[in-house]
């Protein structure tokens, strides 16, 4: 199972994406926890990409690509691809609790709620690949 979704660099696009992702994973029989966690992680990743993108070229025809798939073990893979300048969210310094500046608060969610997350820079694209399977308990 594999699906490619395409989003505009606009915050309202996130909601529509989450609705599709949640519908898709629920229909595939994944647990409420997994659906919730991947939807949440997606919001955090996409907000970062869109905010980071605002600093660059605002061209309206730019898009974010998200590849959604599952493997034989039933793990869900999400790959976010954007053409912003090089930006590895995993290297963003985590904020101390109490530091309310934007950014940083989503990173612990990403690291905790994904089983695996990897960043790479690939021919002009930032590629963030994350994997999440069902968790017991």
């Amino acid at each position, binding site marked *: 199972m594999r699906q490619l979704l395409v989003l505009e660099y606009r915050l309202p696009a996130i909601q529509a994406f989450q609705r599709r992702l949640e519908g898709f994973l629920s229909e595939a029989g994944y647990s409420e926890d997994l659906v919730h966690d991947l939807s949440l992680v997606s*919001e955090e990743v996409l907000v970062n990409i869109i905010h980071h993108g605002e600093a660059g070229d605002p061209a309206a025809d730019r898009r974010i690509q998200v590849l959604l798939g599952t493997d034989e073990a039933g793990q869900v893979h999400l790959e976010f691809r954007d053409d912003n300048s090089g930006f590895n969210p995993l290297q963003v310094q985590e904020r101390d609790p109490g530091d309310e500046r934007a950014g940083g608060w989503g990173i612990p*969610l990403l690291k905790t709620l994904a089983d695996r997350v990897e960043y790479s820079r690939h021919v002009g694209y930032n590629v963030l690949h994350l994997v999440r399977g069902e968790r017991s308990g």
Partner: protein
Amino acid sequence: MSLTIEIYHSDDGKCRIELGGRLDTHTAPDFDARMETLDPAAHPLQVVDLSALDYVSSAGVRSLFKARKVAKQAGGQLLLLNPQPQVRRVFDIIKALPSASVFASEAEMDRYLDAMLKRGSSDSE
């Protein structure tokens, strides 16, 4: 995929804010705007009831954090009541809201407020 906000005032200085749905990047600005209409001097105790909130993201946690800061700066308190497991988990991961301000039930919160009155202090962290 939206947020509902119901605000109830009582004469004893308590204000109850009931949230339902999702507090996220999309809806956090609505919450911020509604909280700005509250006068923390008239309502030093703000209780945010999270029983019907299904989803919170880091943007939502930041809004709750900001509201709590505004209440504290005015000498008041903002307490969070009955977060659902998925919301509680996000609080636990982000760690921006002290667990002492989060209560699993009304009874637990009342005990905390009683103890606070006995200590005669509004600073309760």
